[in-house]
């Protein structure tokens, strides 16, 4: 996906948007890349706690006792859900910071 490949051609009703996008084309591509990076690293954790700890390695982790739970069982029935919640709020915080850095948020 080349982000700038077609930002030259535009003559429709979305032209306003495009003009703005065009003048900030570099910013926009950088913003999008930063977003994708944040997303990819958080999705890695998402995959790790659910598919990893909760399914693929559940038997190995079940050998470990975690309070009254077997660890794999805990991840699949409790832990993964807690991490999911944290991941969304982490994404919100990181994206708000990104929005601020790119001047997409009013400073208050």
């Amino acid at each position, binding site marked *: 996906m080349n982000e700038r490949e077609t930002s030259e051609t535009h003559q429709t009703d979305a032209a306003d948007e495009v003009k703005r996008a065009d003048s900030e084309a570099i910013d926009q591509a950088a913003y999008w890349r930063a977003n994708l990076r944040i997303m990819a690293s958080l999705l890695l954790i998402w995959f790790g706690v*659910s598919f990893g700890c*909760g399914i*693929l390695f559940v038997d190995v982790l079940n050998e470990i006792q975690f309070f009254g739970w077997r660890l794999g069982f805990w991840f699949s029935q409790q832990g993964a859900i807690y991490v999911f919640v944290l991941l969304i709020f982490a994404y919100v915080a990181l994206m708000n910071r990104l929005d601020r850095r790119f001047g997409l948020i009013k400073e208050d």
Partner: protein
Amino acid sequence: MSATLLTYGFVALTFGIYIAIALWSRSDSTNEFYVAGGGVHPIANGAATAADWMSAASFLSMAGIIAFEGADGARYLMGWTGGYVLLAFLLAPYLRRFGKFTVPDFVGDRYYSQTARLVAVLCVIFISFTYIAGQMRGVGIVFSRFLEVEIETGVVIGMGIVFFYAVLGGMKGITYTQVAQYCVLIFAYLVPAIYVSILLTGIPLPMLGFGATMADGSGIHLLDKLDGLTTQLGMAAFTEGRKSTVDMFFIVAALMAGTAGLPHVIVRFFTVPDMRAARVSAGYALVFIALLYTTAPAVAAFSRINLIQAVENASYAELPDWFGKWEDSGLLSWVDKNQDGRLQYRGGAAMNPAKPVFVDGRGASGERLVSNELTSNENELYIDRDIIVLASPEIAQLPNWVIALMAAGGLAAALSTAAGLLLVISSAISHDLIKNTLAKNVTERQELNYARLSAAVAIFIAGLFGIYPPGFVAEVVAFAFGLAAASFFPAIVLGIFSKRVSKEGAIAGMLTGIVFTAGYIIYFKFIEPSANTSEFWWWGISPEGIGTLGMLLNFAVSLSVTRFTHAPPADVQAMVLMIRQPEKGD
């Protein structure tokens, strides 16, 4: 006061609140009817999303399934929450920035094609009706068990209430009633769970009590005790999974992608003010959902222990009240195989077919007789999974008002989900089908009337499904998630994350995903149900998890077809760039 009287009181009170909210939040424009005017606070939308999402199945059935399946039940816990991460990262913010009313709106505009829009409309209607049948049935079950009215009457009352606030208030009415319904349902779910947790472990938080030691002085961890009890009785150990790793993996992935692709969940994020609000609102939604989803496995473990201790080797004549009531409603059955007048609860099915077929008359101890053939194992008990949540306060001998609360909570869960689905169906018809396809020159007022009319018709049809449930409701639920995962999820994600994917690519991808997934499910569920075992499944993937494969196929086909077709027009590409970042300065 008797439980029935209290239940009437609670249900009447909550219904009164829903009606009052509906009167206060009437919709006067299509913008209000479809997306509540786009000004819903992220926290309010989070609560509404949670109520919208948590259906009769989450409230009534999920803990029951986990209680009987133990570790394997985790597929619902992870699948139905992990989808919100995908929703928050990949879909909700961009679709909000897109700023129209429906999911077919996005599919139709992004893929500049009426065909794509129509495929989306059909999927929306099919998925939503599949889902709604179960909700109306849930309403009927709660009414018949707790208010002792016929299931039919219960469904009609439920239809009346939903009609009132969905038709009058549209999304605006639905949003604020859903906030109230969330409060009712989470309170109703947590109170008995906290009670039971204290009784069993002495710890008030069920999420922690679940991993604590028993309060009976034995010092054994609750789950170890449960593993011991289950293996002792010849059942599978509670914390031990039985499904294959491959199947678990595919099912969880299908449920996650399906959750993120369900239209009635996606449209909730069209109601918040902007893109940033959509991100944080998904977070609040998951907090509200997680409150129930982390409690459910605790409720499951608690009620399995309580159930075993209440019935195992108990004399039928001395059983508590609840047993007889659920037996009368046909959801419990006991056959005295060894003629000792006591219940033996063991592994394996007590009878064949597994569900009891009752005949007139009573047995030697007073139990209801069945015509089923008895199996040769020692198990004498049939327990329907759906009663676990509703019966657990009674099994744990909690006060009557807690039991009454459960009924109000179950109704809140079913009604809130039904209303959200109805709105999606009505907007698919009035907005996508009538306004954007058939009669483009309708005025806003006419469109609003069509929206109300289609909501009314949809409620009527949903009610019929509730009264005359098609025998295959449970089977088709796998469809809803599988199809959402194999159709919308890839189409929308590609529409946002690639400027290049063309309409030909997207349509070919969606059709491949749908045909493949539906074909696999129909084959194993309807054509050859006897072959529905892991040895016949492709790579050991059950119909429940096949949506994941359908999704991968969709991605692959969309991307390959795109390579050989023209790029989307410039305005569409500009639109894709536009939705990727927030408006400046808000």
